[in-house]
């Protein structure tokens, strides 16, 4: 695949490089979102709609790599836009809207995975807003690594289990529908989903939850040392 700029469906204006202008890359972001920025100043409602039209799709398709569910991804993106508008964050950011929105959705995705790994129960999707904030990775490449690990974990599932998992998780198809489509009992579908989840979770947990565990051990050790020193006093 050789992507070229003519194939890009976004209305990207090729950046004009007039002499005496600012640096190339910063003018990229400025001219890029120039129209949206101006609209945002005069009419935030209208500006938000333009922003939505422009970034909703790429944000959703990016978020789903983290959360593996259409519904959750779309809710997460909508949530992000909503906060962006009601919190008037568009007035406060100094980067491009794009950089902000992508960074934010990656953080949300990261938090979501961490939260899912920390807890044992299945997640109630209506509580998406309460996903707690974890410390974010220092390195930007860790985000890619994380969702690529998720993808690999799903890829390693046995064929039918993966199919059921994707239908259930990605598309949000009810268990009953999957069962009738595959002509198996709903109970079997449930078991397959459970095993798939466990497998994916296990694979991600091994790599991504260890630093947290080490931290906990360290904290416990520190407390133990403190107690010991108190006793010896």
């Amino acid at each position, binding site marked *: 695949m050789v*992507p070229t700029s003519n194939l*890009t469906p976004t209305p990207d204006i090729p950046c004009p490089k007039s002499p005496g202008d600012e640096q190339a890359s910063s003018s*990229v972001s400025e001219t890029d979102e120039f129209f949206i920025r101006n609209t945002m100043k005069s009419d935030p409602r209208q500006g938000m709609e333009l922003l939505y039209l422009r970034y909703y799709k*790429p944000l*959703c398709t990016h978020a789903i790599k983290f959360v593996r569910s259409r519904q959750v991804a779309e809710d997460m993106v*909508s949530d992000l836009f909503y*906060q962006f508008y009601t919190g008037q964050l568009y007035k406060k950011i100094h*980067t491009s809207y794009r*950089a902000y929105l992508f960074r934010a959705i990656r953080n949300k995705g990261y938090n979501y995975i961490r939260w899912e790994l920390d807890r044992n129960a299945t997640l109630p999707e209506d509580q998406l807003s309460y996903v707690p904030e974890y410390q974010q990775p220092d390195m930007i490449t860790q985000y890619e690594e994380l969702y690529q690990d998720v993808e690999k974990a799903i890829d390693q599932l046995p064929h039918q289990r993966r199919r059921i998992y994707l239908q259930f998780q990605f598309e949000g198809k009810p268990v009953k529908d999957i069962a009738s489509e595959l002509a198996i009992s709903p109970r079997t579908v449930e078991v397959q989903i459970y095993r798939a989840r466990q497998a994916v979770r296990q694979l991600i947990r091994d790599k991504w939850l260890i630093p947290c565990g080490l931290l906990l051990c360290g904290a416990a050790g520190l407390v133990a040392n403190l107690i010991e020193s108190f006793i010896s006093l």
Partner: protein
Amino acid sequence: MSPLFSKEFFFEYFNGNATSLQKKQIDTWILDPDNEEQFFQYLEEWEILHPQYPVNLEPALNKYRELFEDADKFPPAPVTRAPVPSPFRNLFPHAAAVLLLLGMLGWLYQEPLLFSHYRTLPGEVASWTLDDGSKVTLNANSQLKVPRWWRFAPTRVVYLEGEAAFDVVHTQDDRKFIVKTDNQVDVVVLGTVFTVFNRHHKTQIVLNSGKILLEHRKGQVKEAITMQPGDQVRVDTSGILQKQALPKSILFAPWKEKLFVFDETPLSEIIQLLKDHYRLNAGVTSPELANLTVSGSFTALNADEFLNSLADILDIEYTRNRKNVTFKLNP
């Protein structure tokens, strides 16, 4: 721009085809904010070229417009979808409950809240100076209740159980000082020295100096008696009032010096006195003992001294077992 960080390079990276070394270089390169902008531009482009699934924009946009309507209708829209209920929402019942509780506590503890209590233990005599400068000495096993807020009241009212000597100060605004008893007798004074005995619904007032007015209530009728110095008034259980002039020689409130004075006092009265002063339960072994009378005076600092002196005067014996005293004839 360095050829390493080209669009093709990042597209390969987003595809998952980057080596650890390349990733490390991205992490350094991205620290420049301009590069970060560039990164997200590539990311957006890549996401548009490689959608994970066909995103349906229309219904989402419609839903989103509705959400915006709500956001504009209620401008400070909460960020969380389920607003946390305000802790003050149901304040009223709580406030009412707290007030009720305070009211009940206040009612339960109105005595200590409204009155200062002066008390003496059995065998103890103590003196205090009240807020207005008046002095009061309480005999053993007595209690005086003084309102805490009487500074603002038109009269000074105190409540007495037991026996007390008062030295009342005359105030500039002629405020009355009233000693209330539970025997329908109020002693109304302006400034005098007097004693009040109020036990077992028997009241006895002795005036030392000045002038006092006794208000004796009989049902709805109020009887007023004026006392002169040296006068003694007794009111017994049946409510009968007796007034007599005491001889000049008699001591005023001898108990203040722990002095006990008896003039043909029967032993039965002394047994009552032991109970009042020292909370001792005294009894006799034979009825003839009860008819003995005591005349004379002695000082006694405590119950044992009192009992010893009494036994000497009457030439009898006694045994004491904690709170119980038995008088016996001398063998």
